[in-house]
């Protein structure tokens, strides 16, 4: 996992509440090998017209979006299907952080596992940020994970990033969670032995 410490980027604004993972990555691409890259499938059906060409009106296709590594989204982004492919598509496209009022729970966890930093900010603040970007699309945001601080443009100020410290630590260090859990194997085994003994049918 590639570590995330601190990044500054312009924001691409993705409109619409309840943007589900079917929109982020349509199901028919889920068969694909990750090695081929999922970025090409990102927002496939809303980013392209019926002929498959990029729709110049879609936010991600605009010239000012090129090179941006962060998105501003609306509430409940990533709801619906648990497909981690939605996160792969964002990460493979080069997205490193997503700012919004709320995220689908499974999407949120999937993002953390791939060092895609989800930043929850109050809905009112997100709306002010969107308004600011409408006036100044080139404005940038800095996500400083080490200090757990997001700095917004203009007079929108700096705000704490509320993120579970354990996940933050893993992302900062690019640390592998499975390796870390292995360090607790003694406790796991002891728990497991007693647990299965109490319900022996579970282990059959």
């Amino acid at each position, binding site marked *: 996992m590639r570590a995330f410490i601190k990044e500054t980027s312009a924001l691409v604004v993705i409109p619409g509440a309840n943007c589900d993972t079917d929109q982020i990555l349509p199901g028919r691409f889920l068969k694909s090998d990750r090695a081929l890259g999922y970025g090409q499938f990102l927002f496939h059906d809303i980013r392209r017209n019926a002929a498959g060409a990029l729709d110049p009106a879609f936010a991600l296709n605009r010239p000012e979006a090129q090179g941006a590594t962060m998105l501003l989204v609306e509430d409940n982004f990533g709801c619906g299907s648990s497909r981690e492919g939605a996160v792969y598509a964002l990460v493979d496209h080069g997205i490193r952080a997503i700012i919004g009022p709320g995220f689908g729970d499974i999407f949120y966890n999937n993002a953390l596992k791939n060092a895609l930093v989800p930043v929850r900010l109050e809905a009112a603040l997100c709306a002010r940020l969107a308004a600011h970007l409408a006036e100044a699309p080139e404005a940038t945001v800095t996500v400083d994970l080490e200090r757990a601080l997001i700095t917004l443009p203009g007079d929108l100020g700096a705000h704490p990033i509320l993120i579970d*410290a354990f996940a933050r630590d893993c992302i900062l260090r690019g640390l592998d969670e499975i390796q870390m859990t292995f360090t607790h194997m003694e406790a796991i085994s002891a728990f497991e032995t007693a647990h299965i003994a109490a319900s022996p049918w579970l282990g059959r």
Partner: protein
Amino acid sequence: MFAKIWEAHEILRHPSGPSLLYIDRDLIHEGSFHAFADLRRRGLKPRRPRQIFGIADHYVPTTGRRPEDAAGPAIAQMIRTFDENMDWGGVRHFGLQSREQGIVHVVAPEQGITLPGLTIVCSDSHTSTQGAFGAIAFGIGQSENAHVLATQTLWQIRPRTMRVTIDGVLGAGVTAKDVMLTLIARIGAAGASGHAIEFAGPVVRALSMEARLTLCNMSIEAAARLGMVAPDETTYAYVRNRRYGPGEDEWEQALAHWRGLASDADALFDSEVHLDGSAIAPMVTWGTSPEDAVPITGRVPDPAGFAGADKRKASLKALDYMGLAPGTPLEGLAIDRVFIGSCTNARIEDLRAAAAVLKGRKAVIPAIIVPGSTQVKAQAEAEGLAAAFRQSGFEWRESGCSMCAALNGDQLAPGERCASTSNRNFVGRQGPGSRTHLVSPAMAAAAAITGRLTDVRRI
């Protein structure tokens, strides 16, 4: 109840918050190839293969039972890769030709894999279904799946709790599906975000296990982490003598444990929602989010009436996609196809409800029935339901996720309008350009014989 099960599975708590939870069951489907690739890359194997069950459902053909029946070589390869991964991992699995095959959330209860008090995960968001037995059951991604396969544990932040109490009595023709569409329309598609829902109240107590599964299934459509129903005599009667559950000599021991799981009378929840079950009507969705639901007696709403510019804009877009004008009555809306299936509504009781509406009448539009499991299919055939469906002009298919996930080639053509018993009416969910109206199995059957959205209470 949630706290009791959570704490009974907490191996340790990290100083910064998350708990390391012991996972009793991990259910695997074809989409797990990413997690298996991850294990191979690390030189690991599944640590507790007896607690892992593989079930082929997302990509399986419903027109035959050989990988060659799949809609194309890439899909056939998914099914073969799944079998190979299960064999490699030493994981017990129910493949395409197994009598135990079916949709994972239908099969796991049938086989006694799902039991009260367990922690159950699956890389599918509708794992919430299985909380109907009083279990902590939730969907995970492939990274988390690899973590469970390697360690039989998962780091999780404890969700908040919400109790949804449903009072009164459901009217004729009103089902658990209608309860959930009513709930989601009320609290919104993000309404239970970050919460574990416990469903309670007289309506829930009176529901069968099949209907409780439907209830918990759609918790995720309200953004809940999971849904649960406290186990009771209905639950115990269902799980007794199931293949992977406790044996008869262990039954009393298991029962004693399960009887202690229900929430205490003075249990506190972070939030409470009350629904009057007696006031719920058969529901239908008009838009592209499950929260866009109204009673069948209602009309397509006018976006101008919604609070908030964003909601107005989203609704206009949804109506444009759905090809609907504000004010149109839902009843009488012409439908192109009917799909009865999915982990929401393809259990035996759902098929019985659909058959009861048909009563020999013919479907006037193409309609397919995809049983939730091969076992449900066999039971429906034994009960004469399959013959009745065929007689009414329905296609009687093999089991799988089919047109709910639309990954196996079963899908709508662009612009086609479908009365569907599935769980998601998202843009493009049933195929690019597809228009989905979510309904109960009885409502879907009614739509099949009239070719229109129809109030099943008048049939």
